[in-house]
């Protein structure tokens, strides 16, 4: 399978990338290419121009800014997974990245590419919601910051506007938080049928699920049931019941709505037990 013809442009700066994006409404940004290129090869997508931003140094790297961990959009999964700052300050991200694709995908795929693509079954969005991340985007008119919760708007849809480029991910550092990710993978694709990320930060319980609906979402019912409560195995099991109503959930050959709803309960419970070492 080959892609339809397209023009390849390698951006040398973010400013140039923004400008190229302005010039051609049919252009697409190329990051790691592990979602876009397969779609192009299947001819489900045929952008006129690919603007390669994967090597822009201003979009790569991990740094600490006060109580925030900042990850450049074009940092690869592998760089993130192995980064000492990430491992120390935000262990949930490596916990999630272990479940993404395979070593080859992780060597090329980027955090920004994944979030902007907003696959409803991708692993990272659940972590972003559970962590309360903020996503920074640069547009022709300037930069803005979008809360993770406002970022995912639908299946493959985000709050990013035409002409905007996702530049950074800002993750609040939560010292002492206990985290985990429990995933039930699709038997063939290994995307998440259901994946639940949890953060237990003092008395606060934060949880988010991916794969279940049109986009990743917080598990509000679970958070309310457990925040500020003693987190015993019994309390967790009791809370992880009927977290989501099957109506409106995704359904496919691997899992009906009803089974998916059940898996959300099971994965939420497992993630919490694992985070708390129960």
């Amino acid at each position, binding site marked *: *399978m*080959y892609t*339809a013809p397209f023009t390849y442009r390698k951006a040398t700066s973010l400013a140039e990338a923004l400008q190229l994006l302005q010039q051609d409404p049919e252009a697409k940004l190329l990051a790691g290419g592990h979602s876009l290129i397969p779609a192009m090869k299947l001819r489900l997508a045929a952008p006129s121009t690919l603007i390669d931003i994967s090597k822009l140094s201003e979009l790569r790297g991990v740094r600490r800014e006060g109580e925030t961990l900042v990850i450049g959009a074009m940092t690869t999964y592998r760089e993130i997974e192995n980064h000492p700052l990430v491992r120390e300050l935000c262990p949930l991200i490596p916990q999630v990245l272990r479940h993404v694709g395979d070593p080859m995908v992780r060597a090329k795929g980027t955090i920004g590419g994944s979030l902007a693509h907003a696959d409803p079954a991708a692993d990272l969005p659940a972590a972003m919601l559970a962590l309360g991340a903020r996503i920074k985007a640069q547009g022709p008119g300037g930069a803005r910051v979008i809360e993770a919760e406002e970022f995912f708007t639908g299946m493959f849809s985000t709050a990013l506007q035409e002409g905007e480029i996702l530049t950074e991910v800002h993750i609040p550092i939560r010292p002492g938080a206990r985290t985990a990710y429990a995933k*039930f993978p699709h038997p*063939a*694709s290994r995307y998440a049928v259901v994946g639940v990320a949890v953060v237990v930060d003092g008395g606060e319980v934060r949880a988010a699920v991916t794969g279940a609906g049109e986009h990743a979402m917080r598990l509000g019912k679970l958070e309310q049931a457990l925040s500020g409560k003693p987190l015993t195995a019994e309390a967790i099991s009791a809370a992880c019941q009927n977290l989501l109503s099957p109506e409106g959930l995704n359904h496919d*050959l691997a*899992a009906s709505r009803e089974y998916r709803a059940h898996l959300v309960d099971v994965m939420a419970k497992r993630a919490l037990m694992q985070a708390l070492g129960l």
Partner: protein
Amino acid sequence: MGNRYIGQPLKRREDGKLVRGRGQYLADLPSGAALHLVLVRSPYAHARLVSISLEEALQTPGVVAVYTAADLPELYAPASGPREGRLALHPLLAREQVRYVGEPVVAVLAESRAAAEDAAGRVQVVYDPLPVCADPLEALTAPPLHPSLGTNLALERTVVSGEVGRAFAEAYRVVGARLVEQRVAPAPMEPRGVLATWDGVREALTVWSSTQMPHDLRGALAERLSLAENQVRVVAPDVGGAFGAKINVYPEELLVAYLARRLGRPVRWEEGRNESFTSTIHGRAQVADLEMAFDAEGRVLGLRGRVVADLGAYALETTLGSAPGTLLMLQGPYEIPALELRLQAVYTHATPTGAYRGAGRPEATYYLERLMDMGARALGLDPAELRRRNFIRGPFPYRTRTGAKYDSGAYEQALDRLLEVSRYAELRAWQAEARKQGRRVGVGLCTYVEITGYGWETGGVQVNPDGSVLVFTGTSPHGQGTQNAFVQIVAERIGIPPERIQVVQGDTLAVPYGMGTAGSRTLSVGGSAVLQAAEQVRAKMTRIAAHLLEAAPEDLELGEEGFRVRGTDRGVALEEVIAAAFSPRKLPPGLEPGLEGRASFTLKEANYPFGAHLAVVEVDPETGQVQVLRYIAVDDCGTVINPLLFEGQQHGGVAQGIGQALYEGIFYDAEGQNLQASLLEYALPRADQVPHVEAHRMETPSPTNPLGVKGVGEAGAIAATPAVVNAVLDALEVDHLDMPLSPEKVWRCLREKAVT
């Protein structure tokens, strides 16, 4: 004298090359000036072709030609089957109607694959959708797919033996169910592909194809394109798996060759991974309604019922051939005093089916092994004990009521060996303990007999003046590594070490004739031909050595140093013997120069491998996910030439069998859409889902061939599916669930049990 090479675990020599990506698969062949063929395929399962518009496609840069059926002569892919079968032939491109999703409709040829794909996207076909029947049971009464046949029923057979009515009337227990052998995709790592060139000066066609049967393809090309077989050369390069799917001559192979000749330019076609899910045959695809009657001691009294085979929309070469194998093998390794079985094979609006690793035998084994476990539950007997009470104990050859003639077997011994190596009694105790702790663990058994080998084969051994050897075989493997076994056979017989021996295969210009690699026939048929050719060489070498040593041939023995007069220190080195073979004056009178043997071997009767397998599984009660914890295989495929190759087949076969039991399945919706037509949806087993296979073997020689071998290529895939299903159902403590035993299906089953 013990064997030096036969029976030794010599490593496969090609692996170093293959695992480093240095194989020469079809797509690796140099392209030169070849045109690339891309096919526009039907998105509908059944539709009338209203109109096809090619203008836009033809305007695409790089496009050379775009053809519909109207531009081609009326050609069909070859089909075969039992004499009474009704064959619906597959056209190269659809004429007037399409009958399955994926049927080729338009051929686009361009200077590059990319340009051909661009143009294919611009072909506009208007379809008028027609009613669809993709279900084999409904197809029995649905309007015929091919009105000229008057029916969808392509084949019907019955087997009646013994007093079935009485068996069931007098039964202590009767068990039965509808058992579905779901459609699966063979999914070889390398999809299909063809490259053809036409030499206008010599008027000769050369076709490279990812095929299991070069000579069969040569015959089909010559016949369909009105050429003589001496004008056609077929080469099978490295072939990356086939599992039976590349036995058939497909429409694309004829089309590529036809177009190369018509356009006077090389043409190539490489099947896409997603394309392969609709355009390469599927396997299995049967529905059986069967009942088994037992007496109070657990002895089988009778078996009756019906098997319906889903053929898909057209017949290819293996489409009608698999289901009769199911009927033939439905007695398995058991004494069954009365049988009444009916087989019906029907056309449906779906991808054609055909031979897939086991081709008919896995289905029969699955049905029997499911019924055995149902019987064990109904009678309150251990599944191993129930099987033991029913084994055929000879004498061999043993004729079954279904018409098979088992050459040799030791079914009870295989079970005994399995129970011993698996420590079965301990396993059951462990299971009881685990169950008390709330774990859902299961142990599943399968005892089986299957059928391998058919036809005849050519073999050749040619010793060159420098002492290197070429071995020629008409078999054409696709990853099995059988050439290594041929090397061992030849080295054993002529005393030349394996590293001096090369095998030539898969080229009709180098090998006079061959029936290819299929049905686990390679060693028992091809190996026997090579053995006989080697014996001719050995006989000639012995005569030459005798002449050089001035001794009688019968007094010579062949050792590591060459020939020696038995009981003396007089000998002659092999090099000297070989040199003499090419020097007329050193030869005994009446012997002509040269050192080669050519032989054919006909396998007069098939051979019947057998064995016993055991799976241990655990079900996650919360998610329904199944994990295979242990897998133990005892297979007896006669004499083993190379235990490493043998074990490789055991491991691979078991993995495929686990795949069908737990993960794989092609299911069509009411519109005849294949919803698993990509690896995003179609789940093949992965390394972390297949346990280390504890592979054991027994060696009961087969009397059907001089090597005493049977085939091992399919045994694992035949036995593993029922063993794993039986284990899961044992864990769930239910009678039956259809495959694949997906997490949701298992979860629903557990939930229902909890309610009731």
